[in-house]
C-alpha cells in the first residue's frame, strides 16, 4: 500500500497513460520475472561439459593440403575469404554494368559506399596525385573487409563438427564465423598495407628523405642525439602499427562473435543455469544489431582510413579539414546541393524521402568511370 502511494504521484504523467518511467520499470520487472520463472521451472539444469566455446573458432580442415610442412588446408576461413572476395568483385561489377540514370535502392546504396571510400576515406586523407593512385586499393580494402565482416553475421552451414539431420541428410549445423575473426587474415592485410605505405613513401620522397620524414617537425635545431632517440621511438611506433592495425580489426570482430555466442545461450550452457539464458538472450539481439549496424562498417572504415593516413605519411592531426578540394567546383556543388536538400527535407518533415534520391547524384557522370580512365579523376579530366 505504501509503496503504491509512493509510486503514484510520479506515475501519473500523461492523461490516463503510464509514464515512461513506470513503463520501463514494468518492463524490467517482467524481464526478471521471466528469468525467475525459468529458474523455478528448469532449476540449474542444462549444463553441458562437452560444450567448448573456443571450438567455435577452431579451424577444421575440410580438404587437407600440406605442402612442405605448411598447412594449406581448405577450411571454413578459406570459404569465408572466397565468399568475401567473390562478393566484393561480383557486387561492384554487377552494379557498374547495370547503372541507370534513375537509381534503384541497391545502386543508391553502393553509390553512397563508393562516395564514402572515394571522397571521405581517400580524398580526405591524401593529396590529389596520391589519392588517384591509391583509390582502387583503398576502395577494394574497404569493400573486402566490409563484406567479410557482414557475412560473418549470416548463419551459414559451416559447423562440420556438429551435424543436423534434415530428411535423412547430414547437414552441417548453422554457425557464425568471420574470416576477420581469425588473426591471420587481418595480419596479412596489415602486412600488405605496411609494405605498401613504406614503398609509397620511399617512391615519393626517396629513401633518406622518407626516413627523415619520420621525425616530427620542429626538431631541426636540436642535437643529433635527441634526433636519434626520437627516430628510434618512431621506428618502434611503425612496427607497433603492424600489431595495432591487425589486432584492432581481429579483436573487434572476435569479441563481437564471442559476445553473441555467450549472450545467445553459451553462458547458460557453460555455467549450467538455464534461467540465465532468459536474461542474456535479449542482450544477444541488442549486440547483434550493434555489431551489424555499427561495428562491421566502422571497422572497415577505420582500417581503410588508417591505411590512407599511413600512405599519406602524415600524423593523425595534420589531416586536411575539408574532404573535397577547394578547386573542385562540381564536388563542392554536389555537397552543397545535398546538404541544402537534406536541410529542406528535414524542415518539411520529409527526411526519409530526401530530395536527392530521385535526382541521380551528379557524381555519377565522372565517378564510376573513374576506374576506366587511367590517372584521371574529376579534378583533372573534363566531365
Amino acid at each position, binding site marked *: 500500500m505504501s509503496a503504491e502511494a509512493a509510486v503514484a504521484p510520479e506515475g501519473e504523467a500523461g492523461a490516463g497513460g503510464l509514464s515512461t518511467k513506470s513503463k520501463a520499470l514494468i518492463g524490467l520487472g517482467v524481464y526478471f520475472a521471466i528469468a525467475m520463472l525459468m529458474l523455478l521451472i528448469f532449476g540449474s539444469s542444462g549444463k553441458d561439459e562437452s560444450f567448448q566455446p573456443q571450438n567455435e573458432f577452431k579451424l577444421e580442415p575440410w580438404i587437407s593440403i600440406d605442402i612442405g610442412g605448411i598447412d594449406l588446408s581448405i577450411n571454413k576461413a578459406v570459404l569465408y575469404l572466397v565468399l568475401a572476395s567473390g562478393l566484393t568483385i561480383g557486387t561492384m561489377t554487377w552494379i557498374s554494368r547495370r547503372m541507370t540514370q534513375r537509381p534503384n535502392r541497391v545502386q543508391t546504396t553502393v553509390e553512397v559506399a563508393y562516395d564514402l571510400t572515394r571522397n571521405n576515406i581517400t580524398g580526405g586523407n591524401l593529396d590529389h596525385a596520391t589519392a588517384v593512385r591509391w583509390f582502387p586499393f583503398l576502395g577494394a580494402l574497404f569493400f573486402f573487409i566490409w563484406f567479410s565482416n557482414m557475412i560473418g553475421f549470416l548463419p551459414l552451414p559451416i559447423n562440420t563438427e556438429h551435424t543436423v539431420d534434415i530428411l535423412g541428410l547430414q547437414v552441417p549445423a548453422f554457425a557464425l564465423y568471420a574470416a576477420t575473426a581469425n588473426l591471420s587474415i587481418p595480419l596479412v592485410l596489415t602486412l600488405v598495407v605496411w609494405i605498401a605505405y613504406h614503398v609509397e613513401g620511399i617512391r615519393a620522397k626517396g629513401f633518406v628523405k622518407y626516413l627523415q620524414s619520420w621525425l616530427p617537425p620542429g626538431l631541426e635545431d636540436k642535437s643529433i642525439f635527441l634526433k636519434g632517440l626520437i627516430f628510434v621511438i618512431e621506428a618502434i611506433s611503425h612496427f607497433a602499427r603492424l600489431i*595495432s592495425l591487425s589486432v584492432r580489426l*581481429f579483436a573487434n570482430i572476435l*569479441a563481437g562473435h564471442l559476445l553473441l555466442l555467450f549472450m545467445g545461450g553459451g553462458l547458460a550452457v557453460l555455467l549450467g543455469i538455464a534461467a540465465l539464458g532468459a536474461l542474456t538472450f535479449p542482450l544477444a539481439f541488442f549486440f547483434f544489431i550493434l555489431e551489424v549496424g555499427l561495428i562491421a562498417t566502422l571497422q572497415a572504415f*577505420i582500417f581503410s*582510413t588508417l591505411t590512407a593516413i599511413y600512405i599519406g605519411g602524415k600524423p593523425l592531426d595534420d589531416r586536411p579539414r575539408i*574532404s573535397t578540394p577547394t578547386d573542385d567546383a562540381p564536388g563542392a556543388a554536389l555537397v552543397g546541393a545535398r546538404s541544402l536538400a537534406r536541410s529542406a527535407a528535414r524542415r518539411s518533415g520529409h527526411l526519409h524521402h530526401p530530395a536527392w534520391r530521385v535526382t541521380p547524384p551528379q557524381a555519377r557522370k565522372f565517378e564510376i568511370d573513374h576506374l576506366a580512365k587511367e590517372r584521371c579523376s574529376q579534378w583533372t579530366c573534363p566531365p
Partner: protein
Amino acid sequence: MDLSPVAAAISDEGIEAAGKAIALGVGAGLGSIGAGIGIGIIFGKEIESVARQPEMKSELESIRWLGFALTEAVAFYTFIFGLIAFFL
C-alpha cells in the same frame, strides 16, 4: 581454525587456473574502464563542438568515428590478451 582441507585442495593447477581467470577478469575490466572514459570524452567533446559550430557537423562525424574506434580498440586489446592468457 583448521585450514588443512583448504591447503590440501590447493594444487599447482588450481592456482594456475585461478590466476588465469583473475588475469582475464581484472585485465579486461580495467581496460574497459579506461576505454569507457575515453569514449565518453570523445562523444562529449563532439557534442560540445557541434553545439558551438553546427556547420562543422559533417566534418566532425568522420573524426568522431575515427576517435571512437581507436579508443574502443584499447578495450579489446586487453580483452584479447586476457583471452590469450586464459586459453594458452
